[in-house]
């Protein structure tokens, strides 16, 4: 059987309605009866068509008479007469299918047998994957079933080479960091651009700014079940079409569309249980051990100083062990249900869906409820006119529990209570920080607050497409992303933040983004085997947001909880910002002889974020490809190979404010209720685009008729004029200045392997990807070290995200080893020995800090497999990361006598108690900060490499004869486990959490909630 590859585009309207543009084709057939396959070959050769068929449904060796017709549709009608089959033709693609069968029934067969290759959405259009000469990754969530993925970036996790996804924490609805091909920028604008059905959407926080804890993930509004495909534009040649926002890559999300056929209904329901694994790693020392360490610390101090600090005694010796962690954590129960109906006729196709999700968090009270509906409708009104709308509306309710860096953050602070501390006094009232407790009472924090976010979001677009003449069409679309968000944070009078009188912050945010696109495209094939696909376009976009927030305090009782009854308003703010962009877009693709590819694209963007002189940026790209396996000399028809190379330019304006360039006199600096203004915004009139030039070299190959595939990519990305909020000497009046300060380089290699092997009823689809990315700064203001935050620094030649701190060498085993300078400060045997870089005997951060590793991995990747046999399917996904360091910023349980902090049991047991007892954990010493809080040091820096089992899923599809009897076409049950295990040298639970998503401050763990382990049971049905 001859294997064909043809493009099947789900997005382009014209596809499945056969023969939209009647074309005259001159195909010369020999004047004698021939085999059907011979006729197909002639059509492919002469007409430039690709024909796909299922040999099981049609006898390709049957003899047919040469068609006399000129029209391609009629040619196929003639060829297929009497076979019960018909041709679905679009552009140069022909699908031979049984008459009147639903496309949706037919397609999967072609997919699974590699008979058709999907088209790739490339921004303002689509291309046959074969014709792509840039680096684009495609992933279809449908290929994995089940799983706990809450949002689109979690779907991508571990699946694609060069795409690294890490969540900030395991809190419900928390944000994650997606980096495509390393670090794109120094600013917070390091996230890719997300485009849903052509509309760039906001991926910043979903909340309105009233909540101090972790921000909410704005991407969770997209229901993963609605996603048809996720495509990542990795290199500049593919991404340059999105110009000034594309430096960090572009994630194109295409939602499902209806196909011709009777209505089909998909139902999906799932129930999950989640909990935090490996909590024993965080065990707090019991009362005996705590007192032993604490009093040993005091003894050491007294012996050394001659003072006589008294021992600590247990005020409640009768109390047993008590875990605050167990008190606030739970096994969370979540469920999700979604339904969709899709179908269509030649004229109208629709996909409508609704979903409800209820996610419980593992902390008591934590919860997110999500409801969403979607309608994607497209209609071919005339032969030359088609229209469509995609509308997605969502409502999210998130019930907050203290998290993130809040003083009441649950997991962190559950480790900071002494073994005898309890949440309630004997009279039933709360125990209180500093009166009964060392830290906040977590139950008081949980029960005396009411904090939630309500988020309303609509994403939609409408388009009209006009086909003027054959191949020339105009597509005009308008799209919008609308967010309305409401934060409500009420601290009752008994809450620690309630100021004893009750305090309410009520905040609102409205965000509107409107994009208008007009794209004119032209396709033409010449007989000289030249194919042209060109487009020019124009785009206007405006983002506007407004915020309003009031904080009132003083409520008659906790039953009153709106600000209209507050005794006073301590903060009332409102804000407005907007920015806009105008773009001109151009792209053309030329294909010669089916094997030489050339794509040229360019985009010019103008943005309001810069002063008028620096407003416009130009982002060109060019890429070429050579399909070697199409060459006559290529003899092995079972192997295909393509080589491609590209170079292009992209820009970045993310992470900077809408008016960042403008030096301002700001209002609101009032005194005694009179208005005042102050020069608070430094601005920078020279501010301009951050630009990147990317080079990409790739090879795609498939072996044994597509059973094995491999892609190797090499890339280099040079970013210059980095936008950065540069630290400047405070004597200037400002501590930072936004500017374009330097350059960096990312080099990388990506390898992707795939397999798709069937044998009888057994099938194996495997995937493996690995990417090595190295980053380094190639220029900065000067060669000096520029510290960013407390733990990291930037320096030319070093990686962005490098840790910069004092290096711990070990523990002084005897007093003799201690240099005099340090001895004078009280350092003795058992204390930490730091590296004295400048050799002055003393340790200080200015002179003794050094680069000690990076938060970025040397390589990352994933390994997945899916096995199907009869009705069973088993799949798993492993992801791994190697060489990334993580800094433990939470030092509470590691202070060993510096303050009254309870100890981590592991640390207390491992402490130095005499020569030779430890070379990593210091002695207990009262009141001295040397070992724990005086320096940022490698004592808390750990190897964060890991291998994680992201998901393991087992499903069973009931036999169709059985389910048809009860009215279903398909019924599948599955069981899945997410985050089943993690292998890591990291001593705490999750090396992936990070308190900062900023590339320059990345890889810090402050005992935020780790990712939970989740077990799910689900059922999928179709009828």
């Amino acid at each position, binding site marked *: 059987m001859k294997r064909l590859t043809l493009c099947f585009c789900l997005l382009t309207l014209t596809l499945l309605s056969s023969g939209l543009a009647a074309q005259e084709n001159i195909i010369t057939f020999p004047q004698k009866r021939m085999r059907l396959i011979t006729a197909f070959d002639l059509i492919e050769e002469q007409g430039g068509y690709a024909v796909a068929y299922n040999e099981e449904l049609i006898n390709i060796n049957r003899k047919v008479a040469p068609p006399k017709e000129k029209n391609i549709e009629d040619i196929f009608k003639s060829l297929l007469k009497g076979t019960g089959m018909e041709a679905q033709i679009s552009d140069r693609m022909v699908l031979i299918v049984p008459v009147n069968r639903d496309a949706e029934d037919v397609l999967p067969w072609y997919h699974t047998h590699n008979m058709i290759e999907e088209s790739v959405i490339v921004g303002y259009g689509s291309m046959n994957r074969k014709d792509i000469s840039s680096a684009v990754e495609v992933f279809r969530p449908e290929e994995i079933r089940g799983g706990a993925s809450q949002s689109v970036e979690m779907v991508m996790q571990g699946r694609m080479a060069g795409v690294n996804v890490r969540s900030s924490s395991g809190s419900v609805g928390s944000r994650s960091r997606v980096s495509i091909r390393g670090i794109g920028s120094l600013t917070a604008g390091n996230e890719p651009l997300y485009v849903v059905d052509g509309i760039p959407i906001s991926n910043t926080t979903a909340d309105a700014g009233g909540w101090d804890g972790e921000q909410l993930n704005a991407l969770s509004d997209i229901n993963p079940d609605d996603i048809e495909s996720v495509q990542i534009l990795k290199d500049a040649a593919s991404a340059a079409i999105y110009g000034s926002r594309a430096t960090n890559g572009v994630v194109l999300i295409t939602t499902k569309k209806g196909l011709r056929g009777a209505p089909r209904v998909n139902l999906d329901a799932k129930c999950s249980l989640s909990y935090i694994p490996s909590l024993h790693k965080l065990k707090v020392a019991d009362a005996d051990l705590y007192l032993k360490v604490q009093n040993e610390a005091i003894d050491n101090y007294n012996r050394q100083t001659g003072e006589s600090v008294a021992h600590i005694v247990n005020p409640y010796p009768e109390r047993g062990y008590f875990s605050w962690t167990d008190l606030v954590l739970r096994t969370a129960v979540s469920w999700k249900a979604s339904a969709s109906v899709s179908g269509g006729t030649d004229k109208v196709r629709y996909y409508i869906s609704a979903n409800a999700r209820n996610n419980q968090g593992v902390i008591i009270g934590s919860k997110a409820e999500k409801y969403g509906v979607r309608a994607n409708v497209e209609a071919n009104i005339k032969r030359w006119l088609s229209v469509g709308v995609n509308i997605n509306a969502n409502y999210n309710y998130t019930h907050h529990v203290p998290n993130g860096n809040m003083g009441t953050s649950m997991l962190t602070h559950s480790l900071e209570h002494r073994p005898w501390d309890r949440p309630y006094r004997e009279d039933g009232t709360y125990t209180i920080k500093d009166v009964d407790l060392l830290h906040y009472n977590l139950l008081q924090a949980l029960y005396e607050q009411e904090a939630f976010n309500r988020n309303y979001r609509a994403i939609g677009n409408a388009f009209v497409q006009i086909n003027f003449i054959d191949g020339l069409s105009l597509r005009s679309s308008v799209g919008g992303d609308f967010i309305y968000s409401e934060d409500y944070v009420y601290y009752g009078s008994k809450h620690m933040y309630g100021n*004893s009188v009750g305090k309410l912050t009520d905040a609102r945010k409205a965000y509107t983004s409107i994009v208008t696109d007009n794209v004119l495209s032209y396709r033409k094939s010449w007989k000289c085997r030249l194919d042209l696909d060109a487009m020019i376009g124009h785009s206007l976009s405006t983002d506007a947001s407004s915020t309003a927030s009031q904080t009132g305090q003083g409520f008659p009782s906790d039953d009153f909880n709106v600000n209209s009854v507050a005794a006073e308003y301590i903060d009332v703010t409102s804000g407005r910002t907007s920015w806009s962009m105008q773009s001109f877009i151009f792209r053309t693709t030329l294909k010669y002889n089916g094997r030489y590819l050339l794509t040229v694209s360019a985009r010019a963007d103008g943005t309001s974020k810069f002063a008028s002189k620096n407003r416009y940026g130009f982002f060109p790209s060019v890429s070429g490809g050579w399909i070697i396996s199409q060459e006559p000399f290529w003899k092995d028809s079972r192997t295909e190979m393509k080589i491609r190379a590209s170079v292009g330019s992209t820009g970045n304006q993310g992470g900077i404010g809408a008016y960042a360039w403008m030096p301002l006199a700001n209002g609101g600096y009032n005194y005694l209720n009179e208005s005042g203004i102050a020069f608070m915004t430094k601005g920078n009139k020279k501010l301009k685009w951050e630009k990147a030039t990317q080079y990409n070299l790739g090879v795609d190959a498939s072996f044994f008729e597509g059973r094995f595939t491999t892609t190797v990519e090499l890339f280099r990305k040079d970013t210059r004029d980095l936008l950065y909020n540069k630290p400047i000497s405070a004597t200037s009046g400002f501590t930072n200045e936004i500017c374009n300060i330097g350059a960096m380089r990312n080099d990388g290699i990506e390898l992707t392997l795939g397999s798709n092997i069937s044998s009888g009823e057994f099938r194996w689809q495997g995937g493996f990807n690995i990417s090595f990315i190295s980053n380094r700064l190639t220029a900065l203001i000067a060669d000096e070290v520029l510290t960013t935050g407390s733990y990291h620094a930037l320096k030319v030649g070093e990686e962005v995200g490098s840790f910069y701190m004092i290096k711990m060498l070990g523990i002084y085993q005897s007093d003799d080893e201690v240099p005099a300078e340090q001895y004078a400060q009280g350092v003795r045997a058992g204390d930490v020995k730091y590296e004295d870089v400048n050799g002055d005997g003393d340790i200080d951060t200015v002179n003794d800090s050094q680069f000690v590793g990076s938060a970025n991995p040397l390589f990352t990747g994933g390994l997945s497999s899916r096995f199907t046999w009869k009705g069973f399917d088993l799949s798993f996904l492993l992801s791994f990361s190697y060489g990334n360091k993580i800094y433990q910023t939470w030092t509470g349980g590691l202070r060993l006598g510096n*303050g009254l902090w309870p100890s981590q049991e592991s640390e207390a047991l491992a402490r130095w108690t005499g020569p030779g007892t430890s070379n990593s954990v210091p002695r207990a010493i009262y009141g001295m*900060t040397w070992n724990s809080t005086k320096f940022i040091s490698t004592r808390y820096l750990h190897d964060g490499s890991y291998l994680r089992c992201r998901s393991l899923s087992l499903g069973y599809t009931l036999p169709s004869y059985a389910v048809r009897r009860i009215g279903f076409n398909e019924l599948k049950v599955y069981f899945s486990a997410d985050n089943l295990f993690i292998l890591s040298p990291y001593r705490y639970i999750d090396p992936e959490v990070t308190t900062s998503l900023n590339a320059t401050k990345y890889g810090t763990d402050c005992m935020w909630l780790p990712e939970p382990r989740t077990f799910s049971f689900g059922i999928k049905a179709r009828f």
Partner: protein
Amino acid sequence: MKRPLLILCIVMLSAGCGKYLEKYPHNGVPRENITMEDAELLVTGMYNIAQYKPTFNGWALFDLIGGDIIRTGATNVNTARLMVEGAIDPDKSIVTTPWNGYFAGLYQINSVLEIIESMPDSQRRKEMLGTCHFFRGLYYYNLVTRWRNVPIIKGPGGENQVQAEEASVWEFVAEEFRKSYLLSADFSSKNYVSKEAASALLARTYLAMGRKGDAAALAEGLIDGQLFSLADFSSIFRGKTNAEEIFTFANLIQESSVNLSSYYYTKDSGVGGAYNFMPTAEAMNMYSESDMRKEVSVAMQGSNPVLNKYCGGDAGRDPIYIVRLAEMYLISAECLGLEGGGLERLNELRRFRGLEDVNPSDEEAFLDAVLQERRLELFGEGFRWYDLVRTGKYTSTVGVDAKYTVLPIPARELSLNGNLHQHLLWQAKNAI
């Protein structure tokens, strides 16, 4: 039929030009649009900046490391020495946030000064200039007492500043207060800068500079004047009208983030409090029973000792007291000395506060008595550390190394500005 669509398309393509990319903020105006007509707004803004930029760490520092305050809670250490050693380091926020705040404030003051200087002469212009010089003096007083040799910056901006000698910084501070004294309006409200406020701070500056005669004369002028008189702590520190405060930042809740009370008060206060710092046992016991200042200065909330001068709790804000008349009594006493008749001023104040007279035998004992009185009178108002430092008693009183008599320049500044040099006391002794 198709032609109109093409035209529409062209119209849409060209629609984007023009003003589409011009966007301006709503909470500010471009700096170049500011003129002398905005002077009043700028001066009001300067008050706002001046009161909050030093942050709690700035206003409270001299108490936090003065030996009478220690940390509470999990980071508790029970000696002032450990408190100081743990708190002062070139990276610690107690050092860095005030440094950043003072220079941010100075930038504002210098910018405003530049604009006002360009105005035509008028009485109001003079007064506004007086306000600018007052704040610049106040900020430099705070800088020089902490870091000694700091850069003197007289205009907006400046990154690679060079440090000036300590003596010239002191001269600059005195000069600023003298200018302010000559230009400022007469006293009308404690919340605004006045001639009298400038003269009080000039007295404080002269005391630090050792110009005792000048200091005493200025202090006496204020004591003898009709405007101010001593008042009870229960009115000064509980928001009641009194004639003792000479200059106090209003520090209204909507206008400032400096919340002194929260750091000292506990949750048992009834108004909330984060309770980060508490008086030492010694400080709790330093007031005698008859001392009328005692109740307002220190108290017990539940089982916790607290500094009681700021009573707003989490829910409120307290004024930031910059200078009041009692300090003038103490400056005068100290400068006149035992021989010069200073004892009478000291005892006058003591009598007013409900205490017996003291009768020190010699100048040294007299200085100790004045310092003890300053400790009692000004506890929690930002004096103690520098009082001990300027009289050379800090290391012996608190028991710390000599380097703690000056703050280290923040590490960040040293790395960003090669012209700055760390204070010798903060350099390792055997540095290469």
